[in-house]
């Protein structure tokens, strides 16, 4: 691997979001193919951060910084990917339910899913139930991701799933839920298709859902 790709990968592992856009620009300016920069450095970097997390060598602060560095680099490269070069495994629309402003987990999940090759559309936090339904109709994602971080707001996930049923959209999209108060049992209770225990598990489950 060229030095610039190594540097970019390491900057993502180090979580340096000031350097990663510069290095990404530099790599493209050197004539490297955007898809190679994306796969060999940017995705490789976030995967390495995930590996360090899973081995207890990284804590949440490290991962959140790596996710920020990933986002900054990907923002430079993605617009320059040739059509088809960045073909995704599937489209995921993702947001935190109404009344809930906690987006820490979502930030990491988005980085990991994007790093794993999914097209991720982030609706943000405090998203009304109807907006989720409208976005599923409009964007036709393979997966709808719902996050909640309070025991009151997590109950709204069922409203979203019920709303999808009423709108005739439920069989067109898989629903994956996540967030601190949620569990596999809760996912089953509300009729979700999968529960992402954490960001890495969300990638595993998303891969299963689109397989």
């Amino acid at each position, binding site marked *: 691997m060229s030095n610039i790709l190594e540097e970019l990968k390491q900057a993502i592992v180090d979580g340096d979001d000031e350097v990663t856009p510069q290095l990404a620009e530099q790599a493209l300016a050197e004539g490297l193919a955007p898809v190679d920069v994306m796969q060999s450095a940017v995705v490789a970097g976030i995967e390495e951060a995930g590996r360090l997390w899973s081995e207890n060598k990284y804590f949440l*602060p490290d991962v959140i910084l790596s996710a920020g560095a990933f986002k900054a680099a990907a923002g430079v490269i993605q617009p320059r990917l040739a059509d088809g070069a960045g073909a995704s495994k599937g489209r995921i629309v993702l947001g935190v339910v*109404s*009344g809930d402003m906690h987006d820490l987990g979502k930030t990491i999940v988005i980085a990991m899913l994007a790093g794993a090759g999914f097209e991720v559309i982030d609706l943000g936090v405090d998203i009304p139930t109807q907006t989720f339904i409208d976005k599923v109709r409009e964007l036709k994602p393979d997966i709808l991701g719902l996050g909640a971080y309070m025991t009151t707001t997590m109950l709204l996930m069922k409203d979203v799933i019920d709303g999808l049923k009423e709108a005739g959209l439920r069989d067109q999209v898989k629903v994956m839920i996540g967030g601190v108060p949620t569990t596999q049992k809760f996912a089953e209770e509300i009729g979700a298709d999968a529960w992402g225990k954490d960001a890495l598990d969300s990638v595993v489950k998303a891969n299963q859902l689109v397989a």
Partner: protein
Amino acid sequence: MTEKKFTLLTTSGVEGSVEINPEDPKTWYLAGTANRGNRLTISAQGPDHVMALSGIAPRKFHTDPVAHMAAEAAVSAYYGLDGLMLGEDVYDIEAEALGQKMVYGESMPTIDFREPFIAQKSDLDKLKAPDSWIDRGRVKYMFEIQKTLVELGAQSAYFCAPFSLAVGLRSYPKLIRDIRRDPEFAHAFMGCLVDEILPSYLKELMAYCGAGMATGADAWAAYPDIGPDIMEEWVLPYNARLTANCQKLGFMAMGAGTADYCEEDLNRYSKEILHKCFDIQSKNMFGTPFVFMAMGRWHEYPLEDVVEYLAEKYESKGIRATVQGAINARFMREASPQEIVDYVKRLIDLFGRKHDLALFIASTPADTPSANVHAAVAAARTYGQLPIAENLDEVPFELPQRETFEEYVNRMSNGKGLPV
């Protein structure tokens, strides 16, 4: 009215007597503490559950101290808890009072992390303690709640500890970036919180509510939100500095919930890190022999590692530690009553004889079945009789059959319902 004597077990045996007033759930709670004998205590946290059970609308529940306390007292009395089922979300009040934007919806108000109060580093200039806090945000509401808690026997007021307040005002990602990239700014920010903001807030709170001390909730300083390195460098020193500043003002204030071990992924569970967290907890309490289990998956962690830590650190020196034994929130919601009883029994068996065990239901989810809370309380009362029996399997136990909360309120209020 029937007069009953009460003893508040969680507050060092404060005693008194009370007449049960159908229109005042606080008296139901106090009367319910009568004649409980010598046993381990069990308390709970769970504003979401109290709000759901009482049926009070979120806005009212989180802004009206009278309604809030009536609900807290009624739910605590219903379950027979040894302390009021705390309580209000302690992480937002100070931040909101300082100007942090909040979102009010169908749940607990939450900080709008999209628009942190300290969005730019230059915003640090905006961070000033007001001349008076009482009319800002929901401060009066919180002060009134704490005043009532003290009237009901609480010895400590509570507040948001420095690190968690820093997250509330700056957002987690930005604060972490500051710590890693611009520690000078981060130290200035933390210093302002512990030298100016929190002493000012606490001075006014303590004068208002009459508590003897204040303890700071610190969920953002839990593991793995931060690792032991950040706890050592960015949490402990500032908690200690706050304590020193408040001592100069004539009262005791300390961070209390720091370094709670909350690893979600059992594949990442680490005895070494768990023990480091316990060490930090004790340091945070100025060396007090103290082991704090709260929000983690304690029903799944190997509790033998806690036993080992206590044996090496304290028992070997003849020291009894204070151990908070937690019942996990999701476990409370999803386990069967019998599973909860078995777990509480295990906690008591492991920690109840050699140490001072206090049982704690952590952040009870909104839709937790009441039968599960009753089961936990019944297990604490039955197996927690002091001295703890040598063989708990020989202690007879029956799952309680209880009326619903609605039936309880109707009975206690003579059919009038909660006075809210």
